[in-house]
């Protein structure tokens, strides 16, 4: 039974309204070329590469052995990008006397924007400043997923056998321009012929996406019986905003215990709703900010990992997915299914449209398959999830199969992604089921793009090591005995997404 209908109580009524609305909005036969769904190409394009990936070799086992992060801040005028990376690097190697420069075989260095750096080939200057020449290095850029992609590039360098020790380092210095100029730079990562000139603004693009998500999953379900169309949509948006605000409250509040976070604070749902409207329906507190910061992660082969730590963390699976650059080009096809889903669940759901991130689902499927995960809710203990927007955190729960498509709002209301033992100011009955962004996420930690995915890697590493208290100076965010976690990095409107599964590599 489709998830969204379950919320209704009356499946038949929901199905009727959904079918009626689909027809009225021209989303049915008239909207799609009738024979299109039958074409093999169409089905394949929505999938993720299929069965052949199961047979693919996964290479050598790769472990993370240490990491470091600078505090993320609005501006670090006293540190340029080289010094920021150096600080994160020094933190990572501190206390590991044998992790000397000569043990490093090479590096992968990430930053998103040459515009922000005002310096091309800045990764070479990081390599240079760390004194790592003439070792091999390459710069990684993949939009908002730059940090996550850098983590996986280092993974590949080790898994392939090319390196035994690879440094993944990333940074961004976004304070170098005024905020609205920074938004312009980010929007240049949308199609500059068709999208940017209309008012290039990423918050606007995400607002378009969540508006449709709210329509699909709240208007057509909880408000299916409201006869006046505008009133039904108004109520659905109101409901969606309330629930998105709960996510913002969670992440800001978790960050109160994270000294690396840029904007830790205690907020109420009403505070979030009352904050400035940026792009309807997204308010300021539902959106991450610009930051300066750096992060590094050391990845090693199994043969050397224990030379550096007795608490290594295994990279159990990696996945990456992509989608069209333009939102307008996203297809209306079939959902690539998670192991516990059935095609019947989504019989009437055009996918991904603009409401969901197909790249996130593709990345999740690949990473889960490699890690042998069939039930992420039970087999993952936490996720550091790319919450550039509170809306995209909810959309991503569904992409990653933490709940079915359409259940994301209910998932928040039940409290599943919240931490146990923290008072968020509203009931969270299922708190602790699968904590999402225990660190505070991008919304509260900040989002220095090239560092963000690596920061998630470092926080996940500390969680799995059980060393949060030591690194944060506060035990509140340490989960009890976590075995396995995921990190999720996401680029503009879901045009590319990475998921990496980290697992405790010691007893």
């Amino acid at each position, binding site marked *: 039974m489709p998830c969204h209908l379950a919320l209704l109580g009356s499946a038949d009524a929901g199905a009727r309204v959904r079918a009626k609305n689909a027809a009225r909005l021209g989303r049915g036969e008239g909207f799609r070329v009738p024979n299109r769904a039958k074409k093999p190409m169409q089905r394949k394009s929505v999938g993720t590469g299929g069965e052949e990936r199961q047979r693919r070799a996964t290479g050598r086992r790769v472990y993370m052995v240490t990491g470091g992060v600078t505090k993320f801040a609005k501006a670090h005028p006293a540190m340029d990008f080289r010094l920021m990376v150096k600080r994160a690097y020094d933190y990572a190697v501190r206390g590991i006397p044998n992790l000397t420069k000569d043990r490093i075989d090479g590096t992968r260095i990430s930053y998103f924007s040459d515009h922000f750096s005002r310096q091309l080939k800045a990764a070479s200057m990081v390599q240079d400043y760390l004194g790592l020449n003439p070792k091999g290095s390459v710069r990684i850029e993949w939009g908002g997923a730059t940090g996550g992609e850098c983590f996986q590039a280092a993974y590949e360098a080790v898994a392939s056998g090319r390196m035994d020790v690879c440094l993944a380092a990333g940074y961004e210095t976004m304070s170098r321009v005024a905020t*609205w100029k920074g938004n312009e730079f980010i929007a240049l990562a949308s199609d500059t012929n068709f999208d940017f000139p209309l008012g*290039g603004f990423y918050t606007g693009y995400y607002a378009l996406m969540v508006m449709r998500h709210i329509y699909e999953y709240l208007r057509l379900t909880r408000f299916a019986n409201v006869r006046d169309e505008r009133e039904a949509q108004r109520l659905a948006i109101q409901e969606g905003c309330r629930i998105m605000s709960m996510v913002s409250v969670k992440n800001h509040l978790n960050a109160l215990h994270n000294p690396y976070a840029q904007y830790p604070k205690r907020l109420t749902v009403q505070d979030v709703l009352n904050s400035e409207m940026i792009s*309807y329906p997204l308010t300021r507190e539902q959106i991450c900010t610009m930051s300066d910061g750096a992060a590094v992660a050391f990845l090693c082969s199994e043969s050397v990992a224990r030379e550096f730590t007795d608490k290594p963390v295994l990279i159990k699976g990696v996945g990456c997915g992509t989608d069209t650059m333009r939102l307008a080009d996203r*297809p209306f096809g079939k959902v690539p299914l998670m192991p516990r889903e059935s095609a019947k669940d989504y019989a009437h759901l055009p996918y991904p449209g603009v409401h969901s991130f197909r790249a996130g689902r593709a990345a999740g499927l690949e990473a889960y398959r490699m890690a042998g995960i069939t039930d992420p809710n039970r087999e993952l203990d936490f996720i550091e999830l790319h919450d550039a927007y509170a809306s995209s955190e909810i959309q991503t729960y569904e992409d990653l199969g933490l709940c079915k498509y359409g259940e994301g709002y209910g998932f928040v209301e039940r409290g599943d992604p919240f931490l146990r033992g923290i008072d968020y100011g509203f009931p969270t009955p299922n708190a602790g089921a699968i904590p999402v962004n225990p660190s505070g996420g991008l919304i509260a930690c900040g989002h220095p793009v090239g560092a963000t995915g690596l920061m998630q890697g470092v926080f996940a590493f500390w969680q799995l090591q059980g060393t949060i208290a030591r690194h944060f100076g506060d035990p509140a965010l340490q989960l009890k005995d976590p075995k396995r976690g995921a990190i999720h990095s996401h680029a503009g409107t879901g045009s590319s997404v990475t998921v990496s599964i980290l697992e405790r590599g010691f007893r």
Partner: protein
Amino acid sequence: MKARPPTFTKFRDVQAELARSGAALFRDADGVESLVIRYPYAIEYIHSYAEDSPFFLGLAEGRLRGSRCTRKGCGCVYATPRSHCMECGSATEWLDLPSTGKLHSWTTCHFGSEAFLKETPYNLGLVQFEGVDSLLLVRVKDAKESDLYVGMPVEARFDPNPKYSVTDVWFVPK
């Protein structure tokens, strides 16, 4: 010129000083001073629309053009034109889109990139057209935030003085 620019402990004061004099010192909580300067950079691109050119020339003639895959059995129709089909890789041909459609989704931007701040608030809409497989991102004008809804019928308008930009077309409530 003074040997040392003025010192500030708030970064926003540094920014204000740069606008005034072009240089400032920032002193952080540890007493470390950093010299911050204004560093402008401007570019003029020689931008070719290349294979997308007919779309923009069409707008200047008051025509909204999409593209359709020429392969028999495929025939995908794109509202935002692509010169090759995303599904099968075949060449596409140009076709005229309907001048009316429905809002698939929408938003009102109260802020924007620096280049568009002066135009706020403005509405963005993704328009779906009958018989077309993909959407078109547009500005929606002559409508307030409270007027807009998913499914709203909208109609194309064209700039009589074309700028050869995607902004030469916009939609209004029908």
